[in-house]
């Protein structure tokens, strides 16, 4: 999170410029979009507007945090969107026992999906993209078996969580910020974080060095599952409804984009939490800008595609280094 070093001397040659762009480009993108909107978007500078953007970005950010861990371990978690759906189904089924029981069940559900993901990857040696793809299909299916169609959520506690605030800042923003700090701390300051990066750098080397590779990998996917489940819980609170068909649809794509745009290489070994936060904000601002200027929906899709291509391009450059 000490990444914000825009004041660094501008690099001289091309490769250094590219590296600088890779590491700090996402902050530049956020600043540029903010400036553009301040200049050209009506009613952009208002507390209501910033509040809206902050509330909308929270679930993307929370999912992206888990995705950053998975990508840092040289994996990926495609099941996050479906875990959100599973979480909303479980929430709807267990809300009768109260909000805390429902939250507990939702977290256990997310952890269970993560445990299966992690076991497939760590013990059976299934490629992360394949293992989590299987769970992406399976968890969505399970979500729809548990709750076949949208159901309203009327619990007042959920309504408060979804739209309430403390000192003008929505609860969900505190939760997202808290989780970002916690994940950032875990990556930088804990043994688990260092082991995760070592495994992402080179799994054989980590194995030779005697690191608990399997335990770390399973923990990574459990954390990713739990974070996605929490995101699903918050998204349900905001919508006041459980919609297992649509909730979390294409979320894996947004999360991967946020992580990669934020400067975490797909090749593993590095995790940039500050960049991931900025990446999620960038995606949110981009979507908001296109919607506010009422560009045709197809343009929005194209713009998102361009961002993804840019992200992949950046990742490729890094891979060559």
């Amino acid at each position, binding site marked *: 999170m000490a990444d914000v070093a825009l004041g660094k001397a501008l690099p001289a040659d091309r490769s250094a410029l590219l590296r600088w762009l890779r590491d700090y480009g996402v902050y530049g993108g956020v600043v540029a979009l903010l400036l553009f909107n301040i200049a050209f978007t009506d009613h952009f500078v208002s507390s209501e507007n910033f509040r809206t953007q902050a*509330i909308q970005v929270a679930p993307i950010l929370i999912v992206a945090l888990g995705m950053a861990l998975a990508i840092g371990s040289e994996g990926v978690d495609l099941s996050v969107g479906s875990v959100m759906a599973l979480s909303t189904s479980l929430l709807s*089924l267990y809300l*009768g026992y109260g909000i805390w029981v429902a939250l507990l069940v939702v977290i256990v559900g997310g952890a269970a999906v993560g445990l299966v993901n992690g076991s497939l990857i760590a013990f059976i040696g299934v490629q992360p993209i394949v293992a989590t793809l299987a769970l992406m299909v399976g968890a969505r299916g399970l979500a729809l078996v548990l709750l076949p169609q*949208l159901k*309203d959520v009327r619990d007042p506690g959920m309504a408060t969580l979804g739209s309430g605030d403390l000192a003008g800042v929505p609860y969900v923003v505190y939760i997202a910020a808290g989780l970002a700090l916690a994940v950032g701390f875990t990556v930088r300051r804990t043994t688990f974080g260092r082991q995760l990066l070592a495994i992402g750098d080179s799994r054989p080397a980590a194995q030779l060095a005697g690191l608990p590779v399997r335990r770390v990998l399973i923990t990574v996917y459990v954390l990713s599952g739990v974070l996605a489940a929490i995101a699903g819980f918050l998204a349900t609170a905001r919508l006041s409804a459980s919609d297992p068909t649509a909730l979390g649809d294409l979320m894996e794509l947004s999360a991967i984009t946020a992580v990669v745009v934020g400067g975490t290489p797909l090749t593993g070994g590095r995790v940039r939490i500050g960049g991931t936060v900025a990446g999620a904000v960038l995606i949110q601002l981009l979507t908001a800008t296109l*919607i506010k200027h009422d560009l*045709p929906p197809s343009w929005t899709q194209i713009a998102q595609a361009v961002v993804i291509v840019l992200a992949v391009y950046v990742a490729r450059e890094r891979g060559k280094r």
Partner: protein
Amino acid sequence: MKPQARNASIRTLLAVGLATSLALTAGCAKSEDDASEDKGSDSAQKSEQNGQEVAEGGSTETCTAEKYGAEKLDLKGATVGFSQSEKEANPFRIAETASIKAEAKKRGVKLLAANAQSKFSKQISDVQDLIAKGADLLVIAPLNSDGWEPVLKSAAAKKIPIVTIDRKINATPCKDYVSFIASDFTEQGKRAADQMIEATGGKGEIAILLGTPGNNVTTERTKGFTDQLKAKAPELKVVFKQTGEFARGKGQSVTEQLIQSEPGIKGIYAENDEMGLGAVTALKGAGKSAGDVKIVTVDGTKSAVQGVVDKWIHGVVESNPRFGPLAFQTLDTFTKGEEVRQELIIKDGAYTGANAEADLGKAY
């Protein structure tokens, strides 16, 4: 490595077992209001009787069993195969299937039902299965309009009459299929425009929440709405047109952006109820009161009509899913050897402040 590998598979089994047990514990789940679930399907069946009427329009050409080359038979005692296109995961599909099943039961017809789960290849094999299982007649809710040749061939070989509902098959009527019972999505858009004009006085700025891009329902509901605005209320300007992908969550996010950037917006036309309900959630979250922004939606689901009763939604144009009575009526007439129309359009109702409370039971 051996013992470790065994250890590994045991742990994986444990993990899978945990997930399964989680699924099983759903058995002791306790949701907020389990009781209200059943009421919906009850009233869907009760209102069957209301779905009989046919709207004006459509082709007036007719078809008979003789022209089609089918043999006359008694519908009672016949076997009807029903192929549903999408998972019964939304109110429209649930009500549509329920309506077909209820009508079959009422008429004492044996019904074989299949659901393609939104996969076209499955629908093709579903229909072929239904034919193989001995269906004398077919009712199909097609997922696609094209790609039906293999099925039509096997049906033609056995001279099985086909009625398609809600979506058309691109083939020759009275040769490849008997008749098509349609929803008129363009007309629904037009009627939504009429409600919007009435609600806003025909002046001001409004927004459209579009359905999924590239979907024919989206295209037609948009065309009907904008054409009618052009013709009847040129001073009502559409200043915002974004997709909510027919989903409540997306409708909410888009509306949140809309009310920030266009605070003067007078009305929102949502191309389905779900997006309209998402818009309501967004307006509530922004501290607006019921009726501040006039919302008009299309479909007629229970939640949206309740929204009309609560004054958050100005009006709902119905898209009638109760094809059962009309489909079986058509098959009955046809199998008796009498004339049936090649194209029928199902009549849609409407819900406004005047009738929403009284007609809430009719909503699906």
